[in-house]
């Protein structure tokens, strides 16, 4: 066992750190560190900075503009970004679709779509879920019927994150009703500006707009936008989901949030003493910290097995459950630490146009909002109950 970084890895870490300190905008760091949502423009400027450095898609092959980072380099990069308060790279294009195109797409698709992800010409969203198909994704109904060199798509997707920003969507569609439901699904790329597409916002309980419903009515999609083979989409979708879930440990982000929480607790008073000295609070905080330390090692163990060539299997379900629950625990304790101030919900308090009363501490502007919004973490990317079903089946053979 050797958990130390090599000399090269240490140098890489230093390089990442100095890049971040030279390039992150203070106003964006402030939003991220206080848990306040960033804008589309904030994300785009950050993506562009990373792309100039060649780090927007560090794990990609060099021929497509990546660095061929191994899991340790990827880990170092994410760790540093997390602790510096960098915005999360929007995952739908570079993190989700790209691996699918590289493994299952045509050369033409790779050459066309991958560079556009890096330049930001395309903003992707993920069209899997439907009103009747959430956990039971394979029951999806949105249909694509071949008509010459096009498919005609009809149906509805829902919960689509950032569809309001996106110009492209990758969708699972039904191309056959024969055999098992999984065997009639295809993976297709659709231009959001096509005639017949309507996007309607879904406002979440915290009042924010990040998810949408999308209606498809007689939408014409070029047949060349089909990824891989017709009716093989389920395999590609599962491959993508495994990638989505391993990215869910969020150790670095959780560490940063714990630091912030400690600061809040030092500055708050309970019984005339800093809240951090309160035994009940200290005990809650310590338990989360220990859980997170354990997750860090659990996550590294998974990464190490991936490095040794094993595909992430049901282990990614362990990471998904723990990563989401620990982050939710931190959000919950952050809300608690604010006491009565947790009633406040002014998510725009750090934006330029805000003219209300100053929110102090700044993290109170959206702490409860964030806590409620992050209940989604145990629901999306395969709910935690579904992860447990996967573990029961694949690891326990029950």
């Amino acid at each position: 066992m050797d958990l130390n970084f090599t000399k090269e890895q240490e140098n890489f870490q230093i390089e990442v750190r100095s890049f971040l300190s030279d390039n992150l905008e203070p106003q964006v760091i402030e939003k991220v560190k206080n848990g306040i949502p960033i804008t589309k423009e904030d994300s785009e400027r950050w993506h562009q900075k990373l792309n100039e450095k060649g780090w927007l898609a560090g794990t990609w092959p060099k021929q497509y503009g990546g660095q061929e980072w191994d899991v340790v380099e990827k880990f170092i990069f994410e760790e540093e970004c997390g602790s510096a308060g960098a915005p999360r790279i929007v995952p739908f294009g570079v993190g989700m679709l790209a691996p699918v195109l590289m493994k299952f797409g045509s050369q033409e698709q790779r050459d066309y779509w991958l560079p556009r992800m890096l330049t930001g010409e395309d903003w992707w969203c993920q069209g899997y879920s439907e009103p009747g198909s959430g956990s039971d994704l394979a029951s999806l109904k949105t249909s694509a019927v071949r008509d010459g060199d096009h498919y005609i798509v009809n149906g509805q997707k829902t919960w689509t994150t950032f569809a309001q920003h996106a110009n492209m969507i990758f969708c699972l569609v039904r191309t056959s009703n024969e055999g098992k439901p999984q065997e009639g699904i295809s993976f297709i790329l659709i231009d959001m500006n096509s005639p017949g597409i309507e996007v309607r916002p879904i406002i979440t309980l915290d009042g924010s707009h990040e998810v949408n419903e999308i209606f498809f009515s007689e939408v014409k999609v070029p047949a060349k936008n089909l990824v891989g083979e017709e009716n093989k989409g389920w395999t590609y979708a599962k491959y993508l989901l495994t990638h989505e879930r391993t990215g869910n440990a969020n150790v670095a982000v959780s560490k940063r949030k714990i630091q912030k929480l400690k600061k809040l607790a030092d500055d708050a008073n309970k019984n005339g003493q800093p809240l951090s000295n309160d035994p009940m609070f200290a005990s809650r905080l310590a338990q989360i910290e220990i859980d997170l330390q354990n997750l860090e090692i659990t996550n590294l163990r998974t990464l190490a097995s991936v490095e040794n060539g094993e595909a992430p299997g049901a282990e990614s379900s362990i990471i998904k459950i723990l990563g989401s629950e620990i982050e939710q625990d931190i959000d919950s304790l952050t809300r608690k630490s604010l006491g009565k101030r947790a009633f406040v919900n002014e998510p725009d308090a750090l934006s330029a146009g805000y003219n209300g009363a100053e929110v102090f501490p700044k993290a109170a502007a959206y702490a409860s909002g964030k806590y409620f919004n992050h209940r989604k973490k145990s629901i999306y990317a395969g709910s935690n109950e579904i992860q447990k079903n996967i573990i029961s089946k694949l690891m326990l053979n029950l």
Partner: protein
Amino acid sequence: MDFKPSPERQILFDTLKKYFENEYSLSDRNIAAHSDLGYSKKAWEAMRDLGILESLIDPELDGFGGTALDISTVFEALGRGLVVEPFLEVGILAAKVLSKGNDVQKSLVKKILKNECLPILAHSETDTEYSKSFVETKLSVEADGSYKISGAKRMLKHVTEATHFLVTCRNTGDASSEEGISIACIPTDREGIKIDSFATIDGGRVSDLTFTNVSISSEELVGELGMSYSIVSHAIDTGILAICSEALGIMERIKELTLEYLKTRKQFGVPIGKFQAIQHRMAQLLVEIEQARSSVINATIYFDDETEREKTISAAKFSIGKIGTLVAEESIQLHGGMGMTWEYDLGHYAKRLVLIDHEFGDEDFHLQKYISL
């Protein structure tokens, strides 16, 4: 032994329940709750016409209720309706304080019932200090025998339309001492009061108040100089009983919504309530909610017992805090994405339920208080 409410209270509860189901639409409520005022004046007036305020107030002050059982019954119904109008702030906190005052102050309670005034208790200070005796706002005695108040009050709900503030302040003793606390009842337009307001996550607006050398006369004190802790303490305990009961109503409604969803939402060809993993989670919620109800009944029974009141109140607030958060989180989870939406009722109930833990002391605070008593 009989745990059933009296027939009159049962009728009151059923009347209110029906009224909220038929007349108090949650979508209108949500618009009002997140408006600049934070509630609906129209709904406030309509509900006053039902006699809700009277049922919270003693007969000698023109009400027809005011006992612990009355309050608990009414607030459970208000919880079911997710009512955001200021019944707690005005009908409980302010009315309980004013009922201990001089004749002028007592007459304000009668005016509350006639919708002629809207007094608000301005007590809470530092965000994370939940102790009932925590008061740093200073009361200084001037040469002519009048007083001045300086200090800050935090996170007060429903201040926008208030006519009077009932400001707790101290002239002696350290920040948490029960001795030295006074209450001043002053009109809200008195010089030297600054108000900063914020939108909230669960509806209604909250405000921070700053008092700078605000003049008051000796007739404006509620109770005797420096001797008013017991008045505040009793009012807040009543407030705790009220919001614990509100939480019960919310939890019952959440239980209904979730159960209905588990029976109708289908995945993998069956209602999700057919999955045993889900059944056990829902069964656990039922078990916990029964415990929560018992804690509130216990606090209601002992409410007028001076030696037991605080301990049973802390036990109830601890139970409600712990169970309420669990119920809110689990019910959202069991709904999947649907539980996350603004459109659907559940999330709004869940938000209020969680935020109840941030009012008058959270579960940790009350567990520690329980240990200390």
